[in-house]
């Protein structure tokens, strides 16, 4: 999957092109409920997503990553900017200004998977009805073909066709997330926004769901926008990563480049804060001081200057634009590397710590595989009965 994806997107037309997207929520105050200010949840985000790739959006809570996802799907009305989605029949459509009829045609092509599998499923509908719902609403199928399709979808996500008659409460968190995924792929979409799909799950179940998402991407040619705050999950699943801070993208690059050669001090801080699962590699991180600034009242200049260890006087005065950086070795072809920092070229930032490489064997190797390995198939979830 990675080979075909990373080699081609430069030539191919992007599936999704977001330009200067803004979503401001008004703050109402006073007796007349007049708007006294705005929470700039998303403030000028530009992204392109190529067909078949996974773009991860990472950042701390409140940085606007979920709002970005929801605004792309127009679950929130954008305040400004354009969201161009390449529809297979209609061609490029600007979702930000599209009328209702166009949206109805575009919506089946874009789906979303939510974080909390306990809150996102109607507990009074059977699993079969839940999965059939998108097919019924769009009038795609009915009767026996519909039941067959539901059974097929259940099998695809690693559940059993007879589960269709049960209610969500009978399923574990991981299985519910599979139901959510079945709903999302029911209409055979092009784009799926995954909004923290594994954050609420246990580590072992997390691995099952991640494997399922990767497997489905390969089989159905899906494109993912993967919103997450877990950098180790992102490193595993994403082709490219966008880092957000207070409503803005501060850095974009391929996963490798961004993790090992970060160009923005905030990316460096996020990477260094990640606890390493290796007790022989204890890092006394210098944690970021202070908290994320409020998007209602952001600081001047670069939003990160209040917490940045490399801040200079210019950082509090001028806002650094997200600019394309020259390729470091000239070898990178077409992959765009962008960072919003005045000193992106000068700073020598530390990337992710790679745990001691697994070489040789013996008991010193962390997680030495012993005995028969469990199969890599993700669809082995048992049944809670």
């Amino acid at each position, binding site marked *: *999957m*990675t080979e075909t994806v990373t080699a081609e997107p430069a030539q191919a037309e992007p599936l999704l092109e977001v330009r200067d997207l803004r979503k401001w929520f008004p703050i109402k105050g006073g007796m007349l409920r007049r708007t006294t200010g705005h929470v700039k949840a998303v403030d000028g985000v530009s992204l392109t997503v190529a067909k078949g790739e996974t773009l991860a959006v990472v950042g*701390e*809570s409140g940085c606007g990553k979920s709002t970005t996802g929801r605004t792309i799907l127009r679950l929130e009305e954008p305040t400004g900017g354009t969201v161009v989605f390449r529809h297979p029949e209609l061609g490029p459509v600007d979702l930000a200004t599209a009328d209702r009829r166009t949206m109805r045609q575009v919506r089946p092509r874009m789906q979303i998977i939510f974080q909390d599998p306990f809150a996102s499923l109607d507990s009074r509908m059977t699993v079969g009805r839940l999965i059939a719902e998108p097919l019924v609403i769009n009038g795609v199928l009915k009767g026996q073909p519909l039941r067959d399709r539901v059974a097929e979808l259940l099998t695809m996500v690693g559940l059993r066709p007879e589960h269709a008659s049960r209610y969500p409460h009978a399923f*574990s*968190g*991981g*299985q519910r997330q599979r139901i959510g995924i079945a709903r999302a792929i029911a209409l055979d979409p092009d784009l799926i926004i995954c909004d923290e799909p594994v954050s609420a799950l*246990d*580590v*072992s*179940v*997390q*691995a*099952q769901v*991640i*494997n399922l998402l*990767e497997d489905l991407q390969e089989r159905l040619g899906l494109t993912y926008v993967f919103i997450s*705050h877990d*950098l*180790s999950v992102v*490193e*595993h699943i994403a082709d490219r990563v966008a880092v957000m801070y207070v409503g803005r993208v501060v850095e974009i690059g391929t996963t490798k480049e961004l993790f090992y050669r970060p160009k923005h001090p905030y990316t460096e*801080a*996020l990477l*260094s*804060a*990640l*606890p*390493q*699962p*290796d*007790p*022989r*590699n*204890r890092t006394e991180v210098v*944690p*970021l001081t202070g*908290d*994320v600034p409020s998007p209602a009242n952001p600081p001047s200049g670069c939003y990160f200057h209040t917490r940045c260890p490399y801040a200079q006087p210019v950082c509090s005065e001028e806002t650094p634009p997200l600019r394309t950086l020259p390729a470091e070795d000239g070898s990178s072809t077409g992959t765009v590397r962008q960072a919003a920092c005045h000193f992106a070229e000068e700073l020598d930032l530390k990337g*992710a710590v*790679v*745990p001691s*490489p*697994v070489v040789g064997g013996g*008991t010193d*190797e*962390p*997680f030495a*595989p*012993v*005995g*028969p390995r*469990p*199969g*890599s198939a*993700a669809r*082995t*979830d*048992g049944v809670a009965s």
Partner: protein
Amino acid sequence: MTTHSSARDDDTIVSVRDLQVEFRTTLGVVRALNGVSFDIPRGKVVGIVGESGCGKSVTARAIMQIIEHPGRITNGSIEFHRQGGDVATSQLLTDDESAPADALTASGGIDITRLDPRSAAMRAIRGAEIAMIFQEPMTSLNPVYTVGSQIEEAILLHQTPDKEKARQQAVDMLRQVGMPNPERIARSYPHELSGGMRQRAMIAMAMSCHPALLIADEPTTALDVTTEAQILSLMRKLKAEIGMSIMFITHSMGVVAQLCDEVIVMYLGQVVERASVDEIFYNPKHPYTRSLLRSIPRIGMTEHAPLEVIKGSIPDPYTRVTGCSFHPRCPDYLGDVCRDVIPAEALLAGPTRHGAKCHLYTDEGRAALAAPAATRG
């Protein structure tokens, strides 16, 4: 279990032996803890890991005697040894006439399971000797009182009746946990603080009576990585300065590797493996521990290969699994012996105390391995 129940290190603050907790519900009996035994050494950080529903939090709540209805301790002991020698420990009991005489154990500790949850002796331990911080700081702080007054409450209850002194001590605690402008924070309400600040306030409250043991139940799970790093370095600092023991419940293997000295791995209400943190990561013995470690995505390691998964899911809490509780999901399943016989804890050779409950290391298991393959599942 029996292999180490008699031996107790002198420098142990809490030793739990064969603890069983049941929840009797209308749908049946849930055995949340099924014979849990472990020690918490003085001045060390012990990590408890496992998937949700494995009994991590129930263990913590049993030590604090705050198990929710209808749960109750049906068997076992929790021996608590206070700092400053055994005389001080027994003092707690003589102050409380209602405490049963058998609560004082042979080795001079207090058996917490013998105390009434509402007794004066238990109240003197809870908060002052053993403190706890919870996962979600917003739900554990009272929204209608200021942060300062909530910390003062604990100090007034356990330490001093002087209100002015308590107020100052509260501000001091807030400063110790790294709050900027502690006077102002003491006057603010929980909703005015961010998630990381609230968790700091919780830690300040728990630390205000200088407990000998701090139980932290997933204190960083709800926080961002940057805030998590702040809280972890704070806990490391407090541990070094005050020398208290920490029982750290988490499901993040990264946090365990960075913070803990010893690790207890739980599965379905049982301790399946316990060892030093280095042994757990570099020489894991139990198949469950190995699978758990392999299923976490690690930077620079996986490179788009599918993650290893533990097959199946945790069984329904009302059903009881025979033999080894992990056998339906185990990659190293040996056959009938795993299905029928509960494995005893095998102590493994090595410089540290390393125990695993698995038939790979028991005599029965070895016999089954040697037997012809026909008898194996």
